[in-house]
């Protein structure tokens, strides 16, 4: 955890993409991340993929957590990843997806570059630990 030793704070964007209006989960995650000592930027509801890309690039986040409960992940997540690549921000952003994702889709998302998918009931500690262990190193 070089980040902590150097006094570098892990920055996360918690993003809601698409049309589903359920952000309780995103709020819970945002608060847990804050209490873990991360800086959290919350996107707000109903964001388009390019808005998420804009936020992730400008805020220079280490972690992008996308919460999708609408089932549109196969359409929306690739668009976000494309956008990040366009700005050269894909390589060093840890991309996480939270929501109800079928196993087949999970495999596909991971092939695209999503680091991990967290389903319902994932203990908060597990997610935080994953972020700590996998947040991209920077020089």
């Amino acid at each position: 955890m070089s980040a902590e030793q150097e006094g570098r704070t892990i920055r996360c964007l918690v993003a809601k993409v698409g049309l589903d209006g359920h952000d309780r989960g995103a709020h819970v995650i945002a608060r847990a991340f804050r209490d873990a000592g991360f800086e959290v930027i919350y996107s707000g509801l109903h964001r388009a993929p390019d808005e998420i890309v804009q936020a992730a690039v400008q805020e220079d986040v280490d972690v992008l957590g996308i919460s999708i409960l609408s089932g549109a992940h196969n359409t929306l997540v690739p668009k976000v990843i494309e956008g990040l690549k366009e700005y050269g921000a894909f390589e060093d952003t840890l991309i996480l997806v939270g929501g109800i994702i079928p196993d087949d889709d999970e495999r596909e998302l991971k092939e695209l570059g999503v680091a991990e998918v967290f389903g319902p009931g994932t203990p908060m500690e597990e997610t935080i630990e994953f972020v700590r262990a996998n947040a991209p190193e920077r020089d």
Partner: protein
Amino acid sequence: MSAAEERDLVAELLDGRHRALARVISKIEDHSPGYREIVSDLHAHTGDAEVIGVTGSPGAGKSTLVDKLARRYRDAGLTVGIIAVDPSSPYTGGAVLGDRIRMASNVGDMDVFFRSMSARGQLGGLSTATADAVKALDAFGKDRIIVETVGAGQNEVDVVKTADTVAVLVQPGSGDDVQMLKAGILEIGDVFVVNKADMDGATRTVAELEEMLHMRESPTKGLETGHHGFDVPEHPDAEDGDESGESPDEKAWEPSVIETVATDGEGVDDLIDALDAHRAYLEESGRLEAKARQRYATEIRALVRNDVGELVEAAIDDRGGIDALADRVLARETDPYTVADELVAPIAECVREQRDD
């Protein structure tokens, strides 16, 4: 990070690459190795942006108003950079930076560069980090830079001072008159904005504000009316004026009070007019340059203090740490003044030698 990488990053930023700008601001925030060289390199490219500070109590509508301001600037063909400072938890250092949610009018527009910063325990002070981030946006070529803070304490007031023009937001009917005098925030505002002007009590708040602003003008004003021949000093501010580079006979700025409804953009044009008027005043009166000079002086002092502090910290560590020194004082072996003298003496010696050369 090697010197070559730093140069690349600076070159990419000047070339207009968003990712490079974002990364430079991260380095400034983190004080990562090499950030000083980067900011040094950028300095030559700064000085073209107009910097506006926006402050006010939580919930006054700062972010919403900033969003609308940015939109108007974009409509006028100007590029915009925004730095929004939010508090962080003193316990965990964590923060939820929520201002971005309000930036609804500018989503997807990359020419509005919005960056959230937390007031985390900045090593060189939050105001230094903000000032450096402003430089990065300035060098990137932004025409207008808006710095937004919660006007809660000295720290935030210092942040806002990195701006040429400061707008203070006030909510109607929040017992403001006493509150604002208490916060001392009245002195820093160049433009006052009563936001949510459609709420009850807005007119009263405007009246109260105007009254208070008149009170702050000229301390001898009330005395001039006396018929006992009170001698008004010709240049009452001459002494103070010299220090801040203000010429005594120059016309002082009278802050205006603007009413806005940020949610539907009402009054935003008036606000822009007021900001522009203040800018014009600064330029015509020579205050713009004086302000910048003063700001750089403060910045140099802060950096020097910080750097010397680090030298001294190292000297303390060499002598077994601060606790060991304190123990010796506690045991009456020595006293704080002697310890301080001993620590600073070698540094003072070096400075003296250098000067004599």
